[in-house]
């Protein structure tokens, strides 16, 4: 019996969410009185996982797995789960994690709980807290199958260092064939993505036009943040759809979400509720976002944001 964590790599490297899932998996293994095994594919730095408690790392080195294929990856996870007699399988909420987790669940005839935000409140019966109703509430779900699949919500558990002297094992699963063929991958390079960002700076219609986006980008640059926008902004074509956050756009679970010129429609708030700290800058003191935010400035973005950028630069210089 074991807990198996799947830690996806991007060009051989881990992301923060992999370390978060490993930290979480270590704790679940302790709750169950068992060990943790982390499965990774083509990792160039597998031993980094020891720092977060990975007692055993299975690294699959195979050029045929360089391109992600959910069905093939899910089958690799299944083989690892069977080899390690895994009782709980944990994946993060990356685009690929969300894609393959339901497949793994069916492959292993396992109950799957997605959007999990906390450690199990009980391991017998196995009960786990999840976000629901578009982040307006939580539910406590019992998984009743022998094998359980958990999808850990981003930034919900955090990184917990727990250095162990782990073991590394090369794992060579057999690969199934897939008729779903990847033709091309377009990746924006050099920019922080909304999914991975700790800080997101987002603009709304209050910015008045795409020509004014420089202040959003400058603020994001000084904070090392990703840029985002509200739905009307992407509908108007001022910004690409990939930046739209909200109920039907991207969810944001950042540590800090700064909303500039966004009034805070309920659909927008549904997408950003999971962010830990929310700041709103808006001219309208009655904007609904002020009810949802932690900190607010009532003021004109074109005056406030440049001042904020200047003062943040000073702050960064003094705290470097």
């Amino acid at each position, binding site marked *: 019996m074991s807990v198996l964590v799947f830690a996806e790599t991007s060009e051989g490297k881990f992301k923060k969410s992999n370390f978060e899932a490993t930290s979480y998996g270590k704790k679940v293994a302790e709750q169950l009185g068992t060990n943790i095994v982390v499965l990774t594919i083509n990792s160039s730095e597998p031993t980094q996982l020891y720092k977060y408690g990975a007692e055993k790392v299975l690294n699959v080195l195979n050029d045929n797995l360089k391109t*992600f294929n*959910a*069905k093939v990856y899910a089958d690799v996870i299944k083989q690892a789960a069977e080899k390690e007699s895994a009782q709980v399988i944990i994946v993060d909420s990356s*685009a690929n994690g969300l*894609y393959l987790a*339901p*497949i793994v669940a*069916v492959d292993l005839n396992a109950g*799957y709980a*997605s959007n999990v935000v906390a450690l199990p409140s009980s391991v017998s019966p196995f009960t786990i807290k999840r976000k*629901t*109703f*578009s982040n*307006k*509430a*939580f*539910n*406590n779900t*019992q*998984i009743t199958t022998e094998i359980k699949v958990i999808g850990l919500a981003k930034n919900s558990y955090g990184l917990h260092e727990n250095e162990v002297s782990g073991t590394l094992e090369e794992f060579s699963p057999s690969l199934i064939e*897939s*008729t*779903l*063929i990847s*033709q*091309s*991958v*377009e*990746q*924006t390079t050099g*920019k922080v993505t909304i*999914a*991975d960002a700790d800080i997101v700076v987002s603009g709304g219609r209050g910015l008045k036009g795409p020509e004014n986006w420089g202040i959003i980008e400058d603020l994001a640059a000084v*904070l090392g943040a990703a840029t985002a926008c509200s*739905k009307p902004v992407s*509908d108007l074509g001022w910004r690409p*759809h*990939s930046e*739209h956050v909200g*109920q*039907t756009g991207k969810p944001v679970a950042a540590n*800090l979400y700064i909303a500039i010129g966004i009034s805070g429609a*309920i659909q927008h708030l*549904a997408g950003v*509720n999971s962010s830990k700290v929310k*700041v709103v800058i808006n001219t309208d003191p009655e904007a609904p976002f*002020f*009810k949802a935010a*932690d*900190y*607010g*400035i*009532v003021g004109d973005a074109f005056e*406030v944001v440049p*001042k*904020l950028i200047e*003062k*943040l630069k000073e*702050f960064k210089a003094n*705290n470097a």
Partner: protein
Amino acid sequence: MKILVCISHVPDTTSKINFTENDSKFDTNGVQFVINPFDEFALTRAMWFKEKQGATVTVVNVGTITSEPTLRKALAIGADNAIRVNTEATDGFAVAKELAEVVKNGGYDLILAGRESIDYNGEMVPGMLATILDYNFVNACIQLDIDGDKATVSREIDGGKEVLTSNLPLIIAGQKGLVEEKDLRIPNMRGIMMARKKPLTVVEPINSTPATSIVSFEKQAAKSACKIVDADNVEELISLLHNEAKVI
């Protein structure tokens, strides 16, 4: 081409979320139910295929009689017929097993669903359905074109997109981009009148065993009031974010 669109019957976005029976049940009192917004993208794309390339469009919901107005709305938008699997949708795995029976009995070439429902946000049914049926599946789909029995699909990945190809049958979990929100259909009077005459078939469930069950709900903790900082004093905001919130 035979298209099946999976429809979830969900509370309208603006609904107040309350729970009853000792926080074990969602309180539907006064709640308006709608077609799940993510499924609307799928339904609209299905209508596009019907109108431009020729297809019959069936909509399906796993749910009780209370979801029939939602299915009728999908018929009013232009679907040809509807199926309701007569059981309460409690667990994603069980719903996927029920839908798999519908697919096996209907022989569909293309199955479209939304990426997730806005109530339970499970994001699991389309992937589970595909795996049960051993069909190809693309999640987070932002573009779909069909030429004969070949599909070209784009999906959103973290920080970009991927283009894939597959033969039919294929299952897609769609989101914004599959169609634009401005292109979503609203039923017109003619559609509403015609929908009354379109077939809505009720099939009995296979009653698969759920893999999960919700034992209780909790609301988000009440939030403390927003701290307002003077617009002329942005240093204070920086100080609060650094010293109090500890996020910069």
